[in-house]
């Protein structure tokens, strides 16, 4: 199975240093929660990891290879970023068909993932008619298209109802139990606390806490720990 390894990552936009010397590892069979305040550098880290932005220094790899060097990226990594890049005028099924075609995946896989995320009844509707939760489910379906070994999800619980949250939690736990690697960026601490094995907390572009969830939290709540370690880095930069 495939591990995520990030080492000494630096990324600046103009004079603004979004990520400074970030490094951590997410091992197969685990769910790693990536936490941090707004503007802390979580999304930038994920963008560099997924080859959408170039690092100024450092490395971000899947099984030792940068994302751009993966031969069949969809079969290794499934990712959900932001709202999933959905065209409002396209149907949910067509969105997945486009991605499956680009990834050279069999057409039947589209129906399989639609069924997996519970979106089959709405598959022929245009995306503009979807709720935020439905868009998230479709984005997760896209991430699962290639039966990946790694999931990288940015705020996947956004807009999900309680049943959807439970479904997502069970999906991630089962994915990790099968040996998959999950990197989960989220603001919903309670959700992360229920599903993560390990945490990476970033603040002002730096890693401010990193380790197994149980070791970091000990006998305190995750919220207390989070607010403690981000106390000096709170707020939008």
């Amino acid at each position, binding site marked *: 199975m495939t591990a995520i390894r990030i080492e000494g990552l630096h990324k600046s936009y103009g004079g603004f240093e979004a990520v400074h010397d970030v490094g951590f590892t997410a091992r197969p069979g685990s769910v790693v929660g990536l936490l941090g305040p707004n503007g802390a550098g979580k999304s930038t880290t994920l963008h560099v990891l997924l080859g*959408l*932005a170039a690092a100024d220094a450092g490395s971000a790899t899947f099984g030792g290879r940068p994302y751009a060097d993966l031969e069949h990226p*969809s079969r290794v990594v499934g990712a959900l*970023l932001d709202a999933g*890049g*959905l*065209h409002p005028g396209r149907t949910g099924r067509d969105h997945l068909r486009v*991605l499956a075609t680009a990834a050279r995946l069999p057409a039947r896989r589209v129906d399989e993932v639609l069924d997996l995320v519970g979106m089959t009844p709405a598959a022929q509707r245009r995306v503009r008619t979807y709720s935020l939760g439905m868009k998230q489910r479709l984005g997760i379906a*896209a991430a699962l298209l290639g039966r990946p070994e790694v999931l990288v999800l940015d705020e996947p619980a956004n807009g999900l109802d309680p049943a959807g949250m439970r479904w997502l939690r069970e999906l991630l736990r089962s994915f990790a139990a099968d040996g998959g690697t999950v990197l989960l960026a989220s603001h919903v601490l309670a959700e992360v606390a229920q599903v993560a094995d390990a945490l990476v907390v970033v603040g002002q572009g730096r890693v401010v806490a990193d380790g197994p969830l149980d070791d970091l939290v000990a006998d305190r709540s995750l919220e207390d720990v989070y607010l403690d370690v981000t106390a000096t880095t709170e707020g939008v930069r």
Partner: protein
Amino acid sequence: MFRAELLKLRTTRTPWIIGAVALAGMVLTQVLHLVLPRTLGALASLEGPGLTVGVQAPGAASDLVPGLAAIADLGSAEAQRGMLDLLGNGAGGAGSSGVTALCMLLLGVLAVTTDFRTGGIVPTALVVPDRLRVLAGKAGATAAVALVTGAALALLTAAGLVVAVGTTPGATLALGAGEALAVWGRGLVVLVLLTWLGLAVGTLVRGQVAAIVVVASLALVEPLVQAAALVLTGGTSAATSWLPLTLGALASTGQGAADLLGGTTAVSAWAALAGLTAWAAVLLGTAAVVFRRRDLA
């Protein structure tokens, strides 16, 4: 990637609307081709002592501007070549409706800027991290749509020509099959090159509205530059013939427009096609370099 990008275009309404507008523009152009000579004839018959209309009948048009007579005569090769023009530029390239050209430019622009606007470029780049493959897929898909649209436009022009010859007394087909096919062939290549110009502009500008403004401005400003150069140089400068949309018109139907306007440019259809290809290659190449280097998120 080509199939995926083609599927993207097929599964949204915009490319269909663009195709429909291009076809509607061509229908209008063909109707004008058919109606204009008859209107000129009717105006000429009204002309008498004390009445002078601005445009003269085909028979007397040679006194106005050399070449106009041939263009207004639907039995002439010049007029028939203009009717087959896929760009719908009007008789001898002089009408400059430019609807088809604008539609192809917009098709290229929207094929890439829609991805930037909706964020669809992110899942695309996640599936295919090689940016050049993504751009090549878009170029192939827009070219395919341009070719299909062009084929439909060719059918319309053929129908228009048949009606023109059939309803004009004494008119016969003045063009051989080879020449008709050459006009269509060059027209199809021009349509593809225009979509690629739009694709390049969209990739470089990224913002959808800004990119549309750029290509619309190009379509509006270029004829003005042409006219200004004509007036200032007395038609002795060929420099403005090398602007992209002018090259498209020249490549499609040849010298008709320049001759009609009194220009002395000597750009052949094939040279114009080569010039437009160079524009597309340079702009698309630049766009590819920028697209490859730029962060997508």
